[in-house]
Structures are given as structure tokens and as C-alpha cells.
């Protein structure tokens, strides 16, 4: 920061006074740095001033072209830097941004009475001219002078009404006590800023400060990449994955699970590309197995598919934010889902391996039982299945399986993609007592749900249905393997659920082991 000399700084032909301001970069903002490539245009503004807004909006889009011609434009706010950055972005200012605090030494040094005031500083670092308030002709003169010094023709703001507009009082020109009172509540709100930046899924987020992201990474290399995130193919550096985890509200100890979910979802076999842009509602279900569940407080019990548990909600949300932000798949933009579903905010479930009568999902998929594993599955919203009356495993299996008869679409039989059944503990207990293995239940469900082809030939249906003889029984699933069975939920209550598939795009289930930070 330069000391602001007490001179009559704004007089044409006098040396441009130093700038006691904060910039956005690491390097200090000085007259020398601003004029290193040619001339500088200092535009003093204030957030509360409509004429300042006018100047920012008219000049803002031109700054990049000016910079290429050798004219460096900087908006110098009489506001805190965070408010200055937000205001500049809001009005389309593409030049540098700097800010000063009470008693506004740069404004004092340039003897400002009015904002906006634009001061042209020439190659020789002398004040070459100024504009107070908004004055189209005065601005044209400044740009003509700069152009003459640079030997370039500079882009001019469009000639539009109002051509002149009085400015507002500079805060440096009012009573210091009043200026300090005005600066007390500056209106800066970092949560609102996250919305302005578009760093959200529509809910408030935790700002991803460098400190929070560093803590989330826990020593992992920030620049290491997990690969491009479809559909926009933004690079999933660990820093960006960690930023999404911070935004989502994760604690640092969740991050290995978030990273494993990201690695799984970015496997081409999962076809995140198709899932992210489809008109289907599919979300990305994250299933966590193994010791990590208890270590980080993932809920697999009461309300396992619902609210109330930070680890579940924020891990699922972190993956979705990665898809939406780094991957560019925001609903209404590249995400073209007709309806979507609430699982596209967050969709993370832990399996209750301790209550389950069967081997857990990750063991079925070839991992050792003591490993922590994340599995991702393209899934529709849960459909609850009440059954408090079945007294045999056959009856219960029949009720559960037929609930999925309309999964994807009423007459779309068979489904090749996975339907996920979340079996509640009371239902699981009936199968345990009867000695049913997971394979037996899956086979029973597969064989139970069949219909004559003639009853399925209406509306959206499949080639299999059309090709089959009218009386041929068509199964709901192409194979038993399309039925995924998990156990989760509260100990009381006989409500299981089925999650329909993401269909027609070859999305496979993908699992990744959770890596400790040391690996």
C-alpha cells in the first residue's frame, strides 16, 4: 500500500497520488503497477451510488479490450473489498477491483467530492484528465487522450441516455463520524454471495474458504485430479471436490467417503454423463458399507432415507454439488430432468450390516467385509412399501416385488437396470427366521413378477413384449441380478422401499473402496 501524499492530486498534469487501497490479488495496487503496461483509468465508485452503478455498467464490459490496448481500468470502491467485488460483479465490471476503508485515503488524496470520478493516469504517471459524475463527452475525451498516448483506438461506451448524470457525495467528503457510521453495516453477506456466485444447489451453503478447503483435504494434494466431471468436463481436482464437500456442509472426516463416491461416479461405466443431462429423474444413490459408517456417524437406522443426519445428507450433497457445479449439470441448464426428485439434492444411505441377515452389498460385490466401500447406483425416488400383514416370507416377498411392477413405466417389462430394495429390519427379520438367503429372496422376486405379454401391449412398452406370444409371461426384470437388496431403517415399522432404475443408458453399478488419507 502506498502512502497517500497530501497534494492536490487530481489536477491535470500533476503526479498521480499514491493509492492506499486493497486489491484482490497478492500484489499491491499501485500507480506504478497500473501504468506498467501503459495508462490507467481509476474509477472511484461507491456501492450505494446509482451513478456509480451506471458508470460500472457502461464501462465494465470494455475493460478487457482496453487492457489489451494498454489501458488498465480499476474500480476503486469506498466500501469493504468483499462488497466491492460483489458489486463489481453485479454490474458487469470486468476490470480490476480495489477498495479503501475509512477515512478513504485514496479518495482524499485525489480530492474527491463526487463518486463516480474517473481519473486518467498517463504513461508518465501524471494525471491526464478526469470525469466527475457521469459525463459521456468527458469520458470520450479521457479515452481519446488514452488512445493517443497508447497509439490505439479504444472502445467507447455506447452513446445512450442519460449522457450526463450527477454523482453522489464521496464518503471522503463527508463528516468522518457519519462516514464511519455508514460503513458500520456494510451489507456484506457471504451466504448471499454464494448464491450470487452460483455456488449452490438452491439451498444455503458453507462458503469454501481456503482454510476450510485445506482442512477438508487433510493434507491430500489439492491439484491431484479424479478426472473430468461430465457433462461440462470440469476437472475434478481434489481442491474442487473438497470445495464441494465444504459447500455441502461436510466435516473433514467425511472427505474420504466423498472422494470415493466421486471416483465411483466418474468411472465411465457409471455413465454419469447420461445421468446428468437426461430428462429422466435419476439421482446418484450413494451406498456406504463397512467400518467407515460408524466412524463418521452415518445413519443406517431410523429414517435411513430421510433427514436428520449430517453425514448422510452432506456426503450425498457433496457428490451432487460436484455434478452440478464442477460438472455443470445444474437443473434447467445442462441437467434437463423433466421433474427430478429430492434425491438429486442428496442421496446417501448406509447399510445396516449388523441387522441384516445377509452379506452386505460390498461383500456381494467382491470386497472384504472389513473394508469401507462406497457404491453408486443411478436411482429414481423411493417408493414406500407397507406390509404389516404378511405371515410368510413368500407373501412378503410377493408384496415387495410387485411394488416395483410400475418402476420406470407401467408396461416397461423387463428392466435390465437395477431396482434397489431397501428392506426394513422387521421385514428382514422374517426372512432371517425363515432361513432365506439373499439369493433365494432375489430369485423368488424375479420369478414372482410376471405378466402375459398381451396385458403389457399398451403405451410405452418394450420390444420383448411386442416379440413375445400373447400368453407368454414376461418378467419385470431381465435377470435376478437387476434386483439389489439392502437392509436399513428403524427397528420398528414394516415399511420397506423400492428405488426404480435409471434406464436405457447402460449405467452400471460402481463401487470404490474408501482410501485412508495416508494412501
Amino acid at each position: 500500500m502506498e502512502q497517500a501524499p497530501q497534494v492536490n492530486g487530481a489536477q491535470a498534469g500533476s503526479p498521480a497520488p499514491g493509492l492506499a487501497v486493497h486489491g484482490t490479488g497478492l500484489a499491491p495496487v499501485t500507480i506504478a503497477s497500473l501504468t506498467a503496461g501503459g495508462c490507467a483509468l481509476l474509477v472511484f465508485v461507491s456501492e450505494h451510488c446509482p451513478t456509480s452503478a451506471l458508470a460500472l455498467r457502461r464501462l465494465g464490459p470494455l475493460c478487457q479490450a482496453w487492457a489489451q490496448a494498454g489501458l488498465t481500468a480499476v474500480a476503486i470502491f469506498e466500501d469493504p473489498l468483499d462488497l466491492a467485488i460483489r458489486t463489481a460483479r453485479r454490474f458487469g465490471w470486468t476490470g480490476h477491483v480495489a477498495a479503501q476503508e475509512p477515512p478513504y485515503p485514496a479518495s482524499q488524496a485525489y480530492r474527491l467530492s463526487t463518486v463516480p470520478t474517473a481519473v486518467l493516469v498517463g504513461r508518465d504517471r501524471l494525471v491526464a484528465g478526469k470525469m466527475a459524475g457521469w459525463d459521456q463527452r468527458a469520458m470520450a475525451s479521457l479515452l481519446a487522450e488514452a488512445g493517443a498516448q497508447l497509439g490505439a483506438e479504444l472502445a467507447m461506451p455506447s452513446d445512450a441516455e442519460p449522457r450526463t448524470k450527477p454523482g453522489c457525495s464521496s464518503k471522503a467528503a463527508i463528516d468522518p463520524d457519519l462516514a464511519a457510521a455508514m460503513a458500520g453495516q456494510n451489507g456484506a453477506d457471504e451466504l448471499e454471495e454464494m448464491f450470487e456466485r452460483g455456488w449452490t444447489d438452491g439451498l444455503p451453503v458453507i462458503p469454501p474458504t481456503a482454510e476450510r478447503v485445506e482442512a477438508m483435504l487433510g493434507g491430500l494434494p489439492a491439484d491431484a485430479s479424479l478426472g473430468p466431471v461430465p457433462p461440462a468436463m470440469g476437472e475434478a481436482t481434489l481442491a474442487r471436490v473438497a470445495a464441494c464437500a465444504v459447500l455441502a456442509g461436510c466435516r473433514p472426516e467425511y472427505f474420504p467417503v466423498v472422494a470415493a463416491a466421486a471416483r465411483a461416479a466418474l468411472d465411465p461405466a457409471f455413465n454419469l454423463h447420461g445421468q446428468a443431462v437426461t430428462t429422466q429423474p435419476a439421482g446418484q444413490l450413494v451406498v456406504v458399507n463397512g467400518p467407515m459408517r460408524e466412524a463418521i456417524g452415518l445413519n443406517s437406522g431410523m429414517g435411513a432415507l430421510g433427514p436428520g443426519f449430517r453425514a448422510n445428507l452432506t456426503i450425498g450433497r457433496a457428490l451432487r454439488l460436484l455434478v452440478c457445479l464442477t460438472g455443470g449439470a445444474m437443473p434447467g441448464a445442462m441437467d434437463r430432468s423433466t421433474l427430478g426428485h429430492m434425491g438429486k439434492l442428496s442421496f446417501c444411505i448406509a447399510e445396516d450390516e449388523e441387522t441384516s441377515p445377509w452379506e452386505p452389498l460390498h461383500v456381494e460385490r467382491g470386497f472384504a467385509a472389513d473394508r469401507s466401500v462406497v457404491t453408486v447406483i443411478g436411482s429414481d425416488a423411493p417408493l414406500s412399501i407397507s406390509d404389516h400383514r404378511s405371515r410368510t416370507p413368500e407373501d412378503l416377498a410377493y408384496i415387495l416385488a410387485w411394488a416395483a411392477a410400475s418402476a420406470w413405466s407401467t408396461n416397461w417389462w423387463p428392466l435390465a437396470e437395477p431396482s434397489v430394495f431397501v428392506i426394513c429390519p422387521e421385514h428382514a427379520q422374517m426372512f432371517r427366521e425363515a432361513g432365506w438367503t439373499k439369493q433365494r429372496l432375489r430369485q423368488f422376486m424375479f420369478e414372482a413378477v410376471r405378466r402375459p405379454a398381451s396385458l403389457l401391449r399398451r403405451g410405452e412398452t418394450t420390444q420383448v413384449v411386442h416379440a413375445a406370444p400373447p400368453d407368454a409371461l414376461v418378467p419385470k426384470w431381465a435377470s435376478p441380478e437387476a434386483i439389489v437388496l439392502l437392509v436399513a431403517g428403524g427397528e420398528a415399522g414394516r415399511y420397506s422401499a423400492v428405488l426404480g432404475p435409471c434406464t436405457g443408458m447402460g449405467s452400471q453399478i460402481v463401487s470404490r473402496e474408501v482410501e485412508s488419507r495416508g494412501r
Partner: protein
Amino acid sequence: VAADYVSPFDERVRTPEPLAPRPASMAGSRVVLLDIRKNRGAEFLDRIETLLAAAGAATARVTKEIFSKPAALSLIDEIASGGGLVVEALAD
């Protein structure tokens, strides 16, 4: 002072590729028709192919692995080297 945030976005700016010049006439041109395998896309391409033939263009058909995945680079190379023009069909 503004907080130092880590952006979740990939901030690299991509330069838009300019569109290739539009042909004045289809006569004598070779057109690759890309079927992305969306339902009934082939029917749409059949109609296009008929119209192109009437306009004097030669056509060739290629097919993506599946509509929901980006085309393989080898297919893009095949299209780029095999035809002067390309029509991509989306239907449902």
C-alpha cells in the same frame, strides 16, 4: 478484506469453435448421417437421407454406441475423415 474462496468451478475459459461455412448447395457433397441410437432416430435419418439424395448428395450412415454417452473419438475421426458434412439425429 474479501475471503479467499476455492471455486468449485473449473474456471478455464473455452474458446468457442466457429461454425464451419454452410454449403451453398448439397449437390455433389458427401454427408455422414450420425444415428445416436435414440428411439426412432433412424426413421428421421431415413427421411433426411431421401431428401439429401434428391438434392444430389451422397450419404453414409454411422451409429453411436449409445445415445447417452459421448461419441467415441474413433467415430468422430471416422466422421471427420469420411464426409464433408454431418447430420446428427435426435429423436424420441
